[in-house]
């Protein structure tokens, strides 16, 4: 019989393969920046969504919880208390962005996401759920020292980046895979009329409330929009695979960027969804990519700044 260490070798190799700590830094900075933008977008409506004087009855919110109702807004019920919580969260996000007390900040950021989603579930959006999922994964990931404010202040440019455990990146990649593939699979089980299956989704979408330019013009492009419906689904199925395979990851990033940028252009008010999805892609970077991108940018800048140009 094999010793237990033999059995553990495979998951250990898979999960704890060493990765450049700067990949985590990019994810942390991207996550904190998007979560901060989300907080800023929520700020004007904080009393509407989270205070007892707002739109959602606190007792109904408690009763709607699947198992446990967990929300700081069970205690912070007044307008002033809600404001205080959001200010603390903003501070935590800035700390996370700067990599200062990052673990503690990430913990509070997770508490914030759990809390506001539980308190104002009907007002949540897809990007809230993406941020909430990544809040856990950022918390359990290595923090590292690279690209933090303290390292910057102490001449961090000269610090050699560490190789750290890649478990957080593996979990993030799996999370992105679930987001895309479950979305695609769920549509197969939709009841009739299934607009994704019959190719009418894009036509309805561009006529609907979500559209930036709704109007009768949409009716003239039925064939093209049927193609766009199927193409979007094919892209959603392909993006995680392209991102995960080392040779095709840049194509995956390009395809994902195009898909989500396209949604942002044709849909109203979904810019944060675009940013939230783009924030997940750096988790697919590999050791060496940061150098490669850095070198390419340097070469481009050098070429742009040369006197013969």
């Amino acid at each position, binding site marked *: 019989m094999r010793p237990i260490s033999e059995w*553990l070798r495979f*998951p250990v190799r898979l999960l704890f393969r060493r990765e450049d700590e700067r990949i985590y830094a990019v994810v942390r900075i991207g996550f904190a920046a998007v979560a901060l933008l989300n907080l800023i977008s929520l700020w004007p409506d904080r009393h*509407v969504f989270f205070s007892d004087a707002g739109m959602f009855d606190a007792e109904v919110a408690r009763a709607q919880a699947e*198992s446990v109702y967990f929300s700081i807004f069970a205690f912070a019920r007044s307008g002033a208390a809600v404001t205080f919580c959001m200010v603390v969260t903003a501070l935590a996000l800035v700390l996370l962005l700067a990599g200062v007390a990052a673990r503690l900040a990430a913990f509070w950021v997770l508490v914030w996401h*759990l809390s506001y989603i539980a308190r104002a579930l009907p007002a949540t*959006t897809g990007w809230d759920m993406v941020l909430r*999922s990544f809040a856990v994964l950022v918390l359990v990931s290595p923090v590292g020292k690279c690209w933090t404010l303290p390292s910057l202040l102490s001449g961090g440019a000269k610090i050699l980046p560490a190789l750290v455990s890649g478990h957080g990146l593996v979990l993030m990649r799996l999370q992105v895979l679930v987001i895309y593939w479950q979305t695609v699979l769920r549509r197969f089980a939709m009841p009739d009329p299934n607009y994704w299956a019959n190719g009418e989704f894009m036509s309805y979408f561009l006529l609907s409330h979500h559209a930036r330019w709704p109007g009768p013009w949409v009716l003239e492009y039925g064939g093209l929009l049927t193609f766009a419906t199927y193409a979007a689904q094919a892209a959603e199925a392909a993006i995680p695979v392209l991102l995960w395979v080392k040779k095709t990851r840049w194509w995956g990033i390009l395809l994902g960027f195009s898909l989500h940028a396209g949604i942002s252009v044709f849909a109203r008010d979904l810019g944060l969804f675009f940013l939230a999805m783009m924030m997940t892609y750096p988790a697919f970077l590999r050791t060496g990519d940061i150098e490669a991108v850095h070198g390419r940018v340097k070469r481009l800048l050098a070429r742009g700044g040369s006197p013969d140009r």
Partner: protein
Amino acid sequence: MQPGSARGGAWEDQRGNCARVMLPMSGDDSANSAQGETFPVKGRVWAVLLLGFCCWHSGFLIASIVPRQTGDGKKGSPALNLYRTFISGDQHWNMFETLPLHRSLDARIEVDDGKGGWATLGSVMPGFTPYPSPENARYYNLFYRIMLNAARSPYFGAYLRRTDGLLRARYGSSITGHWALVVDVECMRPLHDSRRDGVPYVPATGYFDAANPGGVPR
């Protein structure tokens, strides 16, 4: 050539000399702390716990690729529900699955002024502020989910009861039955009908009050 592709040769050269390497399963606490790592795993026990969590969460995520049925009254195991609440989230990814078949939502409260006319208040609390225009995704989701969804949410009943209470405080108890939440929408017609006559929308208005969260016929 792949977009953005480039060689990481410089990095590969540096790797051999890299001084700050963390071995998460090594259990070498002194090595970790001496090299300035902030990673929380500082021993075999923690490393095994982390490995266990990662294996479990990976398995949970992989299992989540196949959508589970929700809203069927099955609560599932309490431990799993706790895990979903605090760690994994619901993993219910239905991006653009449901298609709201309307546009131009507007919601307001109309109050009988006792002189044969109607005064209008905003539908957003606190303060009966107007429904935002142009509206944003959150407000739209909010009103769509609590009002227009087929299975009306308990939030909606609570909202109407509270609105009634606030209006009573403002206008007196006789206001009950003399106000309504009025929701205007443009509903989309089936595409084949719209293509035939070029008219994609048909207007519709709903009236609701505390006693009639399902709608008041007018």
